[in-house]
């Protein structure tokens, strides 16, 4: 009797487990298929978009009238950025596929620049036509390769989940058809140089600006330690460690870590090897109350800059986050603000000490400048503005424009409706170089 009961109970248990396992398995499969379908859609979308892109570039080549060329180039721009976004949905980040993405984004910015230009006044020149032709050829190569991969995927029922798995585990990824295909595409694009876009083209990649303009002799580890000590006003009983940067750094630097024995907090600092300039400082400690105002913090920041021989700085932006002030200072020369030369500082509002410092922008753009004479007057510049904007403040400033060049501008702060705008008008030719809508404070959502 007991035996029968036991057998019964056990078999019910086994049947239950089997059923549960089956359900789990089905659910897992459903999710896997769902993920796989997402990848498949992105992949087939990509090949389709590259098809369209290739054709569209071809059409622009054949066009002659300016009226149809501008919209066609705008279409190239749209397709390129769409394809770029689609690539980001494929699990390729562990695969070297950057060049292709960069290529897509460069096609985008090239066609964008040409599309927004007044082609009646400034038609595409011979060089730009050559660029378009090369883009056409290159996109044909990419199209061919992708078509090939697509064919194999469809024929052999290849799954992207396997690609992801292979890439994640480094499980002989060379055997994978999809990965191979994409590697070929990448290799193809690599042979295509950025310089082929013509001399006027500047990649939208914000050039990782190096510190070319700074001078001075190379410093040693020991000197870096000394610089940190004087810059941070250390007492001398701190534990200081200095490490040299790796070979991948565009400009060699020392990383200094300082442990404060009393507070147990840490300060981190990077110093350039050449010249021994502080690049940035962060001190990590809690700041729980406010004793000084943002205004007082600004004064202390300016004083600190002067003490350490950063001259001619004035406040550009000040913002308070809880009990910390974040300040941006820029240099001014003969009444002209030089926005590329900026230094950021964080000041704790409990004791007014500097807990953050960043001079990366300043170091990469600092140099002797001769400020040119403006060719148009401020009245003329004012006329270039949208008449609906009420001008509140104005001054002269040097900024980096879209083409990565420094230009002298008239800067206007104005309001339109409830918003405030910063507008830069080029002081040589009156072009509206930049219009920024300035950030308003953001309301806190769903909280009382």
């Amino acid at each position: 009797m007991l035996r029968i009961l036991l057998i019964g109970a056990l078999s019910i248990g086994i049947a239950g487990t089997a059923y549960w396992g089956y359900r789990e398995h089905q659910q897992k499969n459903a999710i896997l298929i769902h993920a796989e379908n997402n990848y498949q859609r992105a992949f087939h979308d990509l090949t389709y978009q590259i098809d369209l892109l290739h054709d569209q570039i071809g059409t622009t080549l054949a066009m002659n009238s300016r009226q149809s060329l501008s919209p066609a180039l705008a279409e190239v721009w749209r397709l390129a950025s769409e394809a770029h976004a689609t690539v980001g949905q494929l699990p390729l980040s562990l695969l070297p596929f950057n060049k292709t993405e960069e290529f897509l984004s460069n096609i985008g910015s090239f066609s964008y620049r040409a599309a927004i230009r007044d082609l009646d006044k400034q038609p595409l020149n011979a060089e730009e036509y050559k660029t378009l032709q090369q883009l056409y050829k290159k996109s044909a190569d990419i199209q061919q390769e992708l078509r090939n991969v697509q064919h194999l995927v469809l024929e052999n029922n290849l799954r992207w989940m396997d690609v992801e798995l292979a890439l994640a585990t480094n499980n002989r990824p060379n055997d994978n058809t999809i990965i191979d295909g994409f590697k070929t595409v990448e290799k193809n694009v690599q042979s295509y140089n950025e310089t082929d876009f013509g001399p006027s083209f500047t990649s939208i990649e914000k050039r990782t600006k190096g510190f070319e303009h700074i001078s001075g002799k190379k410093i040693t580890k020991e000197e870096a330690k000394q610089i940190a000590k004087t810059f941070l006003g250390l007492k001398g009983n701190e534990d200081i460690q200095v490490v040299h940067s790796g070979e991948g750094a565009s400009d060699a630097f020392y990383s200094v870590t300082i442990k404060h024995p009393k507070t147990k907090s840490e300060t981190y600092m990077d110093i350039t090897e050449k010249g021994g300039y502080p690049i940035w400082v962060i001190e990590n400690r809690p700041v729980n109350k406010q004793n000084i105002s943002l205004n007082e913090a600004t004064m202390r920041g300016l004083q600190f800059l002067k003490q350490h021989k950063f001259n001619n700085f004035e406040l550009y932006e000040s913002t308070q986050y809880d009990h910390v002030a974040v300040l941006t200072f820029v240099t001014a020369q003969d009444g002209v603000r030089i926005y590329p030369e900026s230094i950021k500082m964080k000041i704790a509002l409990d004791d007014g000490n500097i807990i953050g410092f960043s001079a990366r922008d300043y170091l990469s753009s600092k140099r002797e400048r001769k400020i040119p004479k403006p060719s148009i007057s401020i009245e003329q510049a004012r006329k270039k503005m949208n008449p609906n904007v009420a001008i509140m403040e104005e001054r002269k400033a040097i900024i980096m424009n879209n083409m990565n060049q420094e230009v002298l501008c008239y800067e206007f702060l104005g309001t339109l409706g409830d918003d405030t705008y910063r507008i830069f008008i080029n002081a040589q030719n009156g072009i509206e170089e930049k219009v920024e809508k300035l950030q308003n404070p953001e309301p806190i959502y769903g909280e009382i």
Partner: protein
Amino acid sequence: MRKWFICLFLIFSFSYTSQAHAFSKQVIQRGAVGDDVIELQARLQYLGFYRGKIDGVFGWRTYWALRKFQYKFKLPVDGLAGETTKQKLVRASKYYKSFVYNNLRKGNTFTHYGGVPLSKQVKARQTKTKNQATAAKATNTKQMAVKRVKSAAVNVPNGFSQNDIQLMANAVHGEARGEPYIGQVAVAAVILNRINSPSFPNTVAGVIFEPGAFTAVADGQIWLTPNETSRKAVLDALNGWDPSSGALYYFNPHTATNGWIWSRPQIKKIGKHIFCK
């Protein structure tokens, strides 16, 4: 009905009496937050210079309102609320502090114009769950009224929202919560460097959710609740600090399974992570 209104109005005018001087000694400047800013906005609104929300953050609208006030009252126009400006402002306007604080705390939509009965300047919050209603009642008592209230808005770095910050804090927490603070700032900086690079997507979400880009996304650790440290680290990165020196990749040499990542030029090591180009 009318009687009831008058009654209400009387109660309001009794409980919200104007206070003579409450500004602290500080010079208030654009970007500041806190009690003084609330008072500044309320007083500027009383005089009709400021038409925005009283939210306790000294933004651009408050700035222009203050400058208009200084211009009209023949003060030097500098956009700073210093000693003389504050004195003139206090003399010219009234400030119903408990009225403002009560409404801020309840999240009501309200204004603080002079010459209009206060009771007509409030629109109560529509959706109120039971919990919040009781909480509001609790804070309604007199002694709580003087306590510090949280502002109704916050400063955010240019071009990013609180939700972007939250999403990035999630990613940083999932990826680097055991790392030193500076390592967390560096991970946040890598996300930003990728947004700026043409080889990667152009949005916070695009970069974070790129398949295979971050292990924390793949294994779901991104949905752990981030702590205050990772939030702070993200803010530092958004404000322009980049301890990674322009890195686009990082990896943990002990757990990295992908051989390719070793071929990237390395910049520096922070904590357990190697950062590379």
